[in-house]
């Protein structure tokens, strides 16, 4: 292997790693606040790319229908919950929040989806349409189970992943899509060709990582969200509404994931079910960070990206095998680093 190939592979690896890092971050974020292992993160990636691809065609993307549908279900669940708790007076506000807002956003998306819409605005509309799916998903699938064990939540997550993949096929169809790059230009540093697109991907990822790290570690809101994860009742007693914390977290995670979808769109063709493998690579990264540390998770994701890039050069048929087998030594290392005496929940 000579230097140009090495540089190319490294650049590929770092770019992919930066996208996986966004996934890893969303996983760590969701786990830290809700104890949910966010298996369906990959579906949000796919929804992100496919929504942008739909907007490219100048037509309203299928996401509009999905958003309205989930809004109606969430609204119905709210009505049911209010009636059961004898709080019928709250119904209008709750329905306005859970059904009204998604419908308004879907309407805006529908109205804006014209061939004249500039590319940057298409990206914003994509994020606007996919992000609210996060809190809706939390409301429908996870909130009724918020007190359950990590394992039950994990099984629900896998079920959600199944359902969202199927819904993806239903709404977006079986064809794959690619989206255009932000920039096709490139420049040369010390004899190595660097594409602007890659650089943008890495820089935006890095910015988000720093924001999350600072936001969670050093602000009151971040601390409040983390407190919810440890003890929902305790958090409520000191004035943190746990359901709001969960919804906010899922919104943030959906934003990160759909943005990751926008970023990978130019590199690879994305199908309705492409997200799972991408999210699993984010997982490997997140697990390297022990599902708690943002910088470690990002570093892990970068490692996964590099490993994948070099594996595809030497043994392309086995690149996925190599990436997923990496998790075994990582787990071994973590298991040796963990103290033995721990009771299950």
């Amino acid at each position, binding site marked *: 292997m000579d230097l140009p190939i090495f540089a190319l592979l490294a650049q590929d690896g770092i770019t992919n790693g930066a996208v996986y890092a966004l996934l890893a971050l969303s996983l760590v974020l969701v786990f830290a606040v809700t104890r949910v292992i966010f298996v369906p993160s990959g579906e949000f990636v796919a929804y992100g790319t496919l929504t942008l691809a739909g907007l490219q065609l100048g037509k309203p993307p299928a996401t509009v229908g999905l958003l309205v549908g989930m809004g109606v279900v969430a609204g119905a669940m709210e009505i049911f919950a209010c009636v059961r708790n004898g709080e019928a007076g709250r119904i209008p506000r709750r329905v306005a929040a859970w059904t009204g807002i998604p419908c308004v956003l879907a309407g805006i998306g529908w109205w804006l989806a014209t061939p004249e819409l500039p590319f940057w605005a298409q990206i914003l509309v994509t994020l606007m349409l996919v992000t609210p799916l996060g809190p809706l998903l939390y409301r429908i*699938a996870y909130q009724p189970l918020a007190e359950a064990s990590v394992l039950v939540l994990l099984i629900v997550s896998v*079920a959600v992943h199944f359902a969202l993949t*199927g819904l993806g096929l239903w709404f977006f169809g*079986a064809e794959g899509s690619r989206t255009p790059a932000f920039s096709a230009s490139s420049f040369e540093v010390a004899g190595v060709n660097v594409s602007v697109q890659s650089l943008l991907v890495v820089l935006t990822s890095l910015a988000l990582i720093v924001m999350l790290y600072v936001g969670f570690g050093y602000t009151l809101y971040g601390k409040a969200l983390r407190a919810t994860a440890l003890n929902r009742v305790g958090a409520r007693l000191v004035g943190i509404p746990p359901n709001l914390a969960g919804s906010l977290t899922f919104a943030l995670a959906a934003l990160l994931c759909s943005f990751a979808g926008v970023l990978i769109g130019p590199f690879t063709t994305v199908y309705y079910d492409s997200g799972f493998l991408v999210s699993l690579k984010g997982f490997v990264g997140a697990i390297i960070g022990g599902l708690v540390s943002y910088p470690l998770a990002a570093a892990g994701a970068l490692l996964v990206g590099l490993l994948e890039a070099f594996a595809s050069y030497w043994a392309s048929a086995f690149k996925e095998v190599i990436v997923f*087998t990496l998790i075994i030594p990582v787990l071994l290392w973590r298991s040796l680093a963990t103290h033995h005496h721990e009771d299950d929940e």
Partner: protein
Amino acid sequence: MTGRRLPFGAFGYVAFVAVLAGIPLVAPEFWVTLGNYVGLYSIVALGLVLLTGVAGQTSFGQAAFVGIGAYTTAILSTHYALSPWINLFVGLALTLGLAFCLGLITLRMKGHYLPLATIAWGISLALLFGNLEFLGGHTGLTGIPALNLFGLELRNERYFYFLIWGIALLALWATDNLLDSRPGRAVRALRGHLGMAEAFGVDAARLKIVVFVYAALLAAVSGWLYAHLQRFVNPTPFGINQGIEYLFMAVVGGAGSVWGAVVGATLITLAKQVLQDILPALLGKSGNFEVVVFGLLMIVLLQHARDGVWPWLAQLLPRAAPAPVSDAEPLPSRARMATQGPLLEVRAARKAFGGLVAVNDLTFAIESGEILGLIGPNGAGKSTMFNLISGALDVTSGDIAFRGKSIVGCMPFEIARAGIGRTFQHVKLVPGMSVLDNVALGAYVRGSAGVFAAAFGLDRAEETRTKAEAARAIARVGLVPHVHDPAGSLPLGKQRIVEIARALAADPALLLLDEPAAGLRYLEKQELASLLRQLKGEGMTVLLVEHDMDFVMGLTDRLVVMEFGEKLAEGLPVDIQRNPAVLEAYLGGVA
């Protein structure tokens, strides 16, 4: 736990087997095929019932073990013309080795790492099946010979049905046996009561691996059957999606009972069949839409009936009365060598949590046959001292010797095996298990039956003696009317007494009681006190950690008083009551 021994009586079993056996004799081909698949899936789901439902360890990767069973026999019988029956054992051996290694690595982790790891290696193995040349790549391997059973070629699906269900019923029987046995009780305690299980001599880390391997072996058997039923293999049915579906089967059916596996496999297989017919017609598109319904079904089920369908079904069936406990000779009493000097000696034990010294160079000893009270105000370090003796915490420095041998650095299960029994301040009983089973868990250290013996019913003699021993311990503490009640249904005071019975069933030389009177009402305290007096009369050595002075004064021979991690005083109860330093600590110097 529902569905113990004979959940619906002998008649129910006969009816179940009759219906099963009748299907291939009368039903059309289509239903026999479905029945074959239900059988194959049930075998895998059964392993998950034990692993996930009972032991609390989730695996999404069982399909990969099915694949190993299937591919082993496919390769060996097509390339090397080996007999499928030899291949079965080669496949089992391979699975055992792999599952052991994977288990060793991942089972030490906290709950959620295992399922994530199983997803990862589930995907890796499935990708390997598809990418290795000699395994036939994505097209797979064809020409696998039919099974030959006593000279009969099983080419017909109807014949094969009997083999599949014969093995499935055998697995069902073995797993049910296992759950009602010495290792089974320990497995049932693993989920959420790991620390308690270890305190009664269970090597939890080892047992988890055993259960993991057991589930993997069942999956491999299912794969072997699958390969010879289909006569060809390709990677698709061993992928991660199928692995997830196996777990769904166990959860939908009810992962707490062996019958849940069969119910779940049946429901999911039928539902899938129906949905694959209906949905495309309904939606006007073709595609894998049943996953949407499955996903939604799972979410609704977990939100509203987390225990699955079986517990609900079991309510409708008549239940057989629990088997009476027969009297049997006691289990061998554990060697009581005469000890030179005190039974337990604590020498300058220190425990520091970072900068906080919870126990500061404490020294005391317990003589055989006495009740020693360890008392002190809240936060004095009593519970920490207790945990140092029971092995739940390691000392920072100093020594603790039991019968003259140091137990520092021993795991809790090793300390239990040495002859120290304990109770917990916060009651730790397996709530769904009967009082009898909970107490029988205490006798774990006195038995020897392993998983193999238990699964094949070779442990029945020891099991009868264990149950009789547990029943005697229950009689000793006066809980005979509650023998068959679920432990979780008793009031707190009685649960505390069950804890003591469980510790007694272990036949300990030293009994450690951690605040047994905490949270008890006056009358319950009286009953507890008279029980402890009775035990003392029988010559039991007891270390009693307590902060209720009245309770301790009338019971103990000697007292050690702790404050701020240090020993404040030691002596007879009457002297302690007049000790000015103790009065100062308890009453703030009023005296």
